[in-house]
Each structure stands twice: as structure tokens, then as C-alpha cells.
């Protein structure tokens, strides 16, 4: 078992004929993911990596038999077009969206998330490396499959490379992952720590959760509050990046910034610790904490 992705995941790739779209379609297929359709307006009728390309999402839905239609969608198109494409996906009945695109205007992100709420769709990202369920051989994203191992730990992260670092050290220590979800590095994203914790808490294939957070906003503090108020019983572990980051400076990610004393690593570590979460000081400590908890 896992969350968001499983063996029934069938993926549609928006922007499949672009460089990124093509490269990651190949990598997702190599991992074992069922990529069933690609969309690039004007390129319909061609194929990429053996995947049929359609001019629109609606055309793809019409063109494929009922049981073979995509139920999950991944977006590689440039920021100015991402909102429109996401609306088209939701209007076509797709309820799982993974938005890789970076630099989407925040007004677009806010509108998109409100519409996703209305449609009861799960949005991961934007500016995310995606989602992977190693045991289900399902990957919808751009993460390097080689660092993941099937297992029973759920990983939730705001970062890219740092996630691979954490996951790799977990895998080397024998802690595989049920699902790893990248929330995205933007200020406004779809799925939050809270929603991901709830999904993992309800998943029989997950024994514990690892959160990889960073400075900026209060998503980690809100998650800490939720762990207590919702009575999350499975153990939660965390690593927070940016303890030494100076205030007022944006550290790479659009959302990674301490403003007016808010969003500091210190505040996040404090809130999480108070909620019973074991917080690692360096990424490699996570495995030790998992071992120490008898996992």
C-alpha cells in the first residue's frame, strides 16, 4: 500500500514533446509507471517514447477506452500556461495533479487551489519533484528512482535534492519508503504537510512519517498543531533546513524566507518537538532516529 499513487495509476503527461516532458516520460516508464497519454497542442497524432500524443486533454479522454484513460496528470508546461492546462485536466475529470512547473504566479496558484478544492482534486506542487510509491512501481515526477527502496516509511518534503539526500541515507540504512511526496518550494502549494500526514496515517502500508521542512511560512508549525489535535498516532520524524539562514533573504526557493521573525527554523523545531516529533540536526541522523524508535 501507499498514498496517492498505486498500481492503478495511469499517467497523462502535459507538455510531453518538450525536452523535460520526453526525458521524464522515459524515466517514469523505466521505473514501471503506466504512462498512457501525452498532450501537446498541435502535436496530436505523434508519439513520444511509445506514448500516444493528443492535441488536448479532452481529445485524449475521448481517444482512449474507458479502462485505459489517465487518472493522474503531470504538468511540464511553462508557467504562463500551467493554470489553463490544470483547469483543463480538472474539467476532464482528472483528480490527481502533479505540477512540476516552477515560477507560476501566486495569483494563478491561489485560483487553481481554490478550484481544486471545489473539484475535490489532489494537487501536488507547483514547483515539486513529484510523488513516488516505490513498492507500487509508480512514479509521477522527476526524482531519481535509484535512491528509493520499497518500504514502510512515508516521506513528505518541501525540497528536491535534499529529499534525495535524506531518502538515500534512509534506503542505505534499510528504511524503504511507502510513498515520498514533494510538496513544492512555492509559497502557495496544493497538498500540505497536514493532508499528507493524514493520508499516511490512514495508510496500512505506512508505519511512520518523515517530514523534511525548511524556513519560511508556518506549514511545519501548523502540522505540529495538527499532529496533536488530530491525534496522529504513527511516529513522526523531521529535519528542518535553514537553521543558519539570515532573516529577510530568500534562500533559493521562492517560499524559503524568514520575514519579520516568522518562519524561522527555530520556531518550527520547537513546535514539532513539543508535538512529540523527533527532529534530526543533520539529514543523516534520520535513520538513527528511526532505529531508535524500534522501526
Amino acid at each position: 500500500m501507499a498514498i496517492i499513487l498505486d498500481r492503478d495509476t495511469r499517467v497523462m503527461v502535459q507538455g510531453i514533446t518538450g525536452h523535460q516532458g520526453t526525458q521524464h516520460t522515459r524515466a517514469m516508464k523505466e521505473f514501471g509507471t503506466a504512462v498512457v497519454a501525452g498532450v501537446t497542442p498541435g502535436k496530436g497524432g505523434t508519439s513520444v517514447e511509445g506514448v500516444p500524443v493528443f492535441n488536448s486533454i479532452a481529445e485524449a479522454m475521448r481517444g482512449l477506452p474507458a479502462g485505459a484513460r489517465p487518472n493522474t496528470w503531470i504538468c511540464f508546461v511553462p508557467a504562463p500556461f500551467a493554470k489553463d492546462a490544470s483547469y483543463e485536466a480538472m474539467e476532464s475529470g482528472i483528480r490527481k495533479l502533479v505540477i512540476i512547473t516552477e515560477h507560476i504566479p501566486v495569483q494563478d496558484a491561489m485560483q487553481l487551489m481554490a478550484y481544486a478544492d471545489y473539484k475535490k482534486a489532489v494537487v501536488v506542487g507547483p514547483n515539486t519533484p513529484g510523488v513516488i510509491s516505490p513498492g507500487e512501481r509508480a512514479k509521477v515526477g522527476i526524482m531519481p528512482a535509484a535512491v528509493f527502496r520499497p518500504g514502510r516509511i512515508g516521506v513528505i518534503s518541501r525540497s528536491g535534492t535534499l529529499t534525495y539526500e535524506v531518502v538515500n541515507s534512509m534506503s542505505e540504512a534499510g528504511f524503504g519508503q511507502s510513498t515520498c511526496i514533494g510538496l513544492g518550494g512555492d509559497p502557495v502549494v496544493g497538498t500540505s504537510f497536514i493532508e499528507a500526514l493524514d493520508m499516511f496515517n490512514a495508510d496500512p502500508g505506512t508505519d511512520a512519517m518523515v517530514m523534511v521542512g525548511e524556513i519560511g511560512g508556518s506549514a511545519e508549525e501548523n502540522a505540529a498543531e495538527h499532529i496533536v489535535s488530530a491525534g496522529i498516532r504513527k511516529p513522526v520524524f523531521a529535519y528542518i533546513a535553514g537553521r543558519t539562514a539570515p532573516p529577510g533573504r530568500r534562500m533559493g526557493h521562492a517560499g524559503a524566507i524568514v520575514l519579520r521573525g516568522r518562519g524561522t527554523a527555530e520556531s518550527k523545531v520547537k513546535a514539532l518537538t513539543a508535538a512529540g516529533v523527533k527532529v534530526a540536526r543533520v539529514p543523516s541522523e534520520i535513520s538513527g532516529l528511526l532505529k531508535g524508535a524500534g522501526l
Partner: protein
Amino acid sequence: MHTGFPQKGVDGMKLMEAEGREILARHGIPVPAGRVVSAPGELDGIAGPVVVKALVPVGGRGKAGGVKFAGTLEEARARVGEIIGLEIKGCRVRSVLVSEKVDIARELYLSISVDRDAGMALLMASALGGMDIESVPEEKIYRRYINPLIGLQSYQLRDLAGHLALEKPVGQQVSDIARKLYSAFVAEDAELLEINPLAVMPGGKVVAADAKAVIDDDSLFRHPGHREVEPDITPLEQEARERGISFVQLDGNIGVIANGAGLTMATLDALGLVGGNGGTFLDLGGTDDPEKVKQAFRILKKARPKVILMNIFGGITRCDTVATGVHEVVRSEGAGAPVVARIKGWYEERAREILKDAGLITATTMEEAARKAAELSREA
């Protein structure tokens, strides 16, 4: 429950008061008549008492002598001359806004900002305007989210007027201004639009006596007209920015270069734990392009670090390709300082050989690399 404040100033693209004022006026919000001048001689006449304000993208300009009043043209020219050239919190005043002096009976506060946790716009208002909103007591601040699918509705505006206990004619004007402020917020791709004070004049007319605007820099593709205030960054950060390198200059003496924003932060933190001080945040990103690696090292060298700490996790990018780029630049131009490198992931053994051959000190873990770099940074 939300208890935050508008995230202004450093998040998106700051606009000067004059541009903020222009945005409000364009969306039909009453603002005092005024003009921007950059020399006393440009002022050819005033209709009555005026206020002369320094155009700088920082707060606290009043205390710094950047806001002055004048009754006559001569006086106004003199004030313009005094304020231009002042340095306020490190910003040189190059131009001023000369606007009609507003008689104020009451000062209110009104703003709309992006609330990142709610993923919605946040309307904030207070009957206590004219001071920094952070110093207004929590219970005196009215806060409501605006769902982007329905926008700002009349019932919310009635609620707002009720909470601020505004008499009817003032309440109607404030509601109208709030409605227009939200249209402006959406249309201009703002992260923050703030009117403080929103002035009630003795006759009951409501005007925006000041304006702050922060615009989302990811929206510039659809707003070619927005003009950015010069960002508050160092010349070296500016150079990196022009080359598309994510780079922040810090106080320490160890130049940190890694791939990915989170990993770069984590590397700086690992240094901090062993008593080292990071001097740069340099995110190489997902590239293994030797030319990009070379440019990143050139920027790093200019920051004059005592030691360089490189931490690469090769997931999608191959470690050996990155290592080859590093080898090339270190061999041809030198690194300018000892380099401690930790490289992990895809083709890491080959990468380590290449780096050793280039004369770099290698480490297998992030902590080990941080420790070695910190030790070297303490040596004379």
C-alpha cells in the same frame, strides 16, 4: 488561525510609493494630487500646502527626515532640495513625491496580501491607522480571507464597516475602496497592496494618503510596465543574478556550493553545527553543464572565501559530469582556496577520483566535509 502580518518589503518586487499610488489611482481609488520630481527646479507650481516625501523602498523615512511639509512654492523647492541626496537606511534618495497635503481627521488601515498558509488573499483593516500595523493590538485588527473563486463580496464589506464602527458615508467609501483594492490586487498580480493611512478628511472624504505595493515577480511576463525598484542586493549577488545563479552572500568565511536550495541550506547548517561559518549560499541547481559550473566557481572566488565546501548529491545529474566541470575550472583557473568536496550519488566513485586528481580534499559524508572545512577555516 491566522495571526500573521502582510509579508511586505522583501518577498516580491517592491514598488516605490509613486508607482503604488499610480496603481491605486488607475483602479479608481482616490489619492491626493501629486507629482514626482528629481530636482527643485522641476517644480513649477503648487496649488496649496504640500507634503514632500522621499521615494525610497524602505520604511521609517519620516524619522530620517524624508518627509517634510511646505506652504509655498519656494518652501516646497527648498524641501525638495533638502531631501534629494539624503541617505535613508542605505538608500540614496533620487526623487521625491510632492503631493497635496491632506487634512486628516482620522487614520484607518487597509491592506490585501497573499496568505501563503491559507492559499488565499487576506483582507486586513483597522480603525487604528497611521502606525505600523505590527504595533496595533491583535483585537483591533479585522482579518478575512477572500476566496478567489467568488472574490470580495458585499456582505464582507458590510461586516468590515461594522467592525470598524464606521459611520455610513465613511463606511460606504471604505467599502468602495476595499472593492477596488481587491480588483487592483488581482489585476496587478500583487503580493501586497497596503494603504496606511487611509485618511478620513474633516469633511468625511476618504483618500489613500500613502500606498505600498509588492508585485509578484513571477507575473512580470504579463506586466511589462511594472518597474522594479533596484533590488537591495550586493554587486556580486547582482552579477550572479544576471548569470542565472542562485546566490546569497553571507557573513562567514567558508564558501558553500551545493545543488538544490534545500541541500545548500542543509550544508550551511551542518557547518554551523561544527563551528564553521558559511560565507555563501550558492545553489548550482540541477546543472552539470561545465560552463555553468565554471561560472559558479568564478562567483564563489570573488566572494574571497578562506575555504570552499562543495556538497553535491547526484540524483538526476551525474556526479562524474559535475566533477569533470569542477576539475576543469580548478585546473585552468584555480579555486583560490582549498576545496573540501563531498559528492554522493550516481557515479560517485568515478567523481571522487576526478576530484582527487584535481587536488581537492574529499569526504564521504556531509558532516565529515563540514568538519574538515571548519577546521581549515580556523587555520591561519
